[in-house]
Structure formats: structure tokens, C-alpha cells
């Protein structure tokens, strides 16, 4: 197919296709200078754009609510609890809490501070002492040092309330600033 060359360029349609996929780099003067070749390349751009539009149009049809519910239900069954963290130091009874549960606790505590969304949470427990490292994003306009201090206080309070650990370091990293919060 397409053995004839396009315009005066001496290149075939397949050659142009490869040239298109290379992003027209390095530039080939015989192609770029030929009006027919340029028209073919522009058509290839349009067909690519049309393919994206096709998928976006189909996507706009949406999905059944049950489709989402099946995924969310499966995810809930497979909830990733992570490691067991020792809660008590009693010799007879070993009490543990999952890493996932502590992360959730820290996340909720951080989210409670105005303008904050928590990103990642790391928890380490050793000999009854817990160290927490979390990254957060903050809405632009909040005083960052103040926000970090409040997150630290909330996390400290939440852990102290729920577990008998000594709270060690709470390392708060502000990872991103968001411009605003859209209410929906």
C-alpha cells in the first residue's frame, strides 16, 4: 500500500507516518517544503485529535452507578491494612493496631485543619514511641508556619487520645500549595 510518493518529496505515505510520529524531528526539508506533504501531515494531526475526541465523546456517556459500586465494594474488602504496630507492652497480651488505621487517624487529624489536605503519612513505632512524617497541601493564603504547627498539634492530640504511645517527632512537610477550594 502507498508505494507512490507524495507530491515532489520522494517520500511515501508510510515515510510520512513515521515522520509524523517522530514529531517531524529532525526536520526533512523535502517534506516540510512540499505543500502536499504538509497537507498529509496536517491530516494526520487532525485524525489523531479526532481519535482523542472519539474517546472523550464516548466517555461523556457516563457509567452505571452499579459499575462504580462494584469496584468500591471490592476495594473495601481488600483494604490495605499494612503492618501491625504494637500498641501495648504487656507481657501476656499483645495488642496491635494496623498501620493503615494509624495513617487514617493522622490523615483525618490533618484534614481537620482549615485549608489542609493530607497527602502521604509515614508512621514508625519503636519501644512505645511513635514518630510520624506527613506531607500536606495547603490552600494559598494561609500562613504556612501556623498551618504546620496546627497540623502537628492536631496529630499529636489524635494519637495521644487513641494510643498509649509517647509521641515523638511529627514531621510536617508542605508539599504543594493549592490556589483555592472549589465547593461542589
Amino acid at each position: 500500500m502507498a508505494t507512490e510518493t507524495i507530491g515532489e518529496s520522494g517520500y511515501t505515505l508510510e515515510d510520512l507516518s513515521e515522520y509524523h510520529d517522530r514529531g517531524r524531528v529532525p526536520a526533512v526539508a523535502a517534506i516540510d517544503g512540499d505543500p502536499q506533504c504538509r497537507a498529509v501531515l496536517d491530516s494526520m494531526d487532525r485524525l489523531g485529535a479526532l481519535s482523542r475526541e472519539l474517546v472523550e465523546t464516548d466517555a461523556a456517556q457516563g457509567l452505571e452507578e452499579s459499575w462504580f459500586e462494584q469496584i468500591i465494594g471490592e476495594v473495601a474488602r481488600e483494604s490495605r491494612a499494612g503492618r501491625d504496630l504494637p500498641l501495648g507492652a504487656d507481657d501476656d497480651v499483645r495488642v496491635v493496631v494496623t498501620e493503615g488505621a494509624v495513617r487514617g487517624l493522622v490523615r483525618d487529624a490533618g484534614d481537620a485543619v482549615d485549608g489542609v489536605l493530607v497527602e502521604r503519612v509515614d508512621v514508625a513505632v519503636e519501644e512505645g514511641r511513635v514518630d510520624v512524617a506527613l506531607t500536606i497541601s495547603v490552600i494559598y493564603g494561609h500562613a504556612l508556619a501556623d498551618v504546620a504547627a496546627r497540623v502537628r498539634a492536631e496529630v499529636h492530640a489524635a494519637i495521644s487520645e487513641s494510643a498509649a504511645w509517647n509521641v515523638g517527632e511529627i514531621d510536617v512537610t508542605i508539599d504543594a500549595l493549592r490556589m483555592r477550594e472549589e465547593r461542589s
Partner: protein
Amino acid sequence: MDRLLSAEDGILAQRAADGDERAFAVLVRRHGPYLVAFATRILRSRADADDCVQEALIVAWRRLPELREPDRVRAWFSTIVARKATDRLRARRPSTPIEDAEPLSTLPSPDESALTSSQLDALRTVLDDLPAEQRTAWLLREVSGYSYDEIARELGISATAVRGRLARARATVFERMQEWR
């Protein structure tokens, strides 16, 4: 929590990697329709695509802690979907190499027939008529924006083979879409 609805993908992906099911649910709602539409084009079946993307997203949930670039979570989802869809294509015809398979005659499925744009319908038919591996290569390249090397990795073929498939796909699409150009 409604604040999650407006949170960027990167934030949601990081929370989901930590086990936040609500953040993952927001990602699934945000990108599910696109992923199903993408898989439908590969598989030529909306019902298969529904199943395929559900399966892919549950795999994604398990593997989220491995995600290196949380901001690109949609592209990462697409990769898993493309791989699952390719597996399904292979399983459909275990004895026939996909490359040799003849294109099937195509009738629009009922959920697609309502679409009014005739140009999009024409392209849909042309893509459906392509051999499966040319079609998959085209979709990964044009819709997902993958490089030849990335497509080669997803399809388990050489970059040279990808180039050949894309060139053939493009020549066919180009010629059959002539009246729309």
C-alpha cells in the same frame, strides 16, 4: 468528604496509595468513564470494556504503593487497562495470532448508535476494522500519547514492529477517512 472532589489527581493518588478508599473512589469516578471508553475502542465491546476496566482498577488499587508519579495516575491507569485489554484480545482467539486475524464486519453496538457525529462514527468504524494489534498501537499512540518504546513494552513486541504497525494503521485510517479530511 466533598473537599476530595476538587483535589488534584496527585493528592488523591498519594492518599489512595496510603489506603484512603475515599480518595481512590474519587479517582475511579473521575477517570472511569474515560478508561471504559478507551478500553471499548480496543476491545470493540462496551460490555467487555466494563469488566476489563473494573478488573484493571482493582489491580491498580493493590499496586498503588508502587506508583512513582502520582500526578500521572490517569496515564498509569491507562497502562494497566491497555495491558488487561490486550490480554483479553489474546484470550479471545487462543489459536489465531492477532496479527493474522481478519477484521470482523462491524455493526455499531446499541449504546453507540445514538452518537450523532457522522465523522466520529466514520472513524469509529475505520478503527474497528483495523487488525486488533494495529488498532491497539494506534490508540496507545494517538489517544494515550505513548512513545514507540512504551507501546513496545505494553504489547511485548519490538519498537520496530510498533513502527510498522503504526505506519500501516495510519495509512489505512488516512485512506479510508479521505472524504472527511
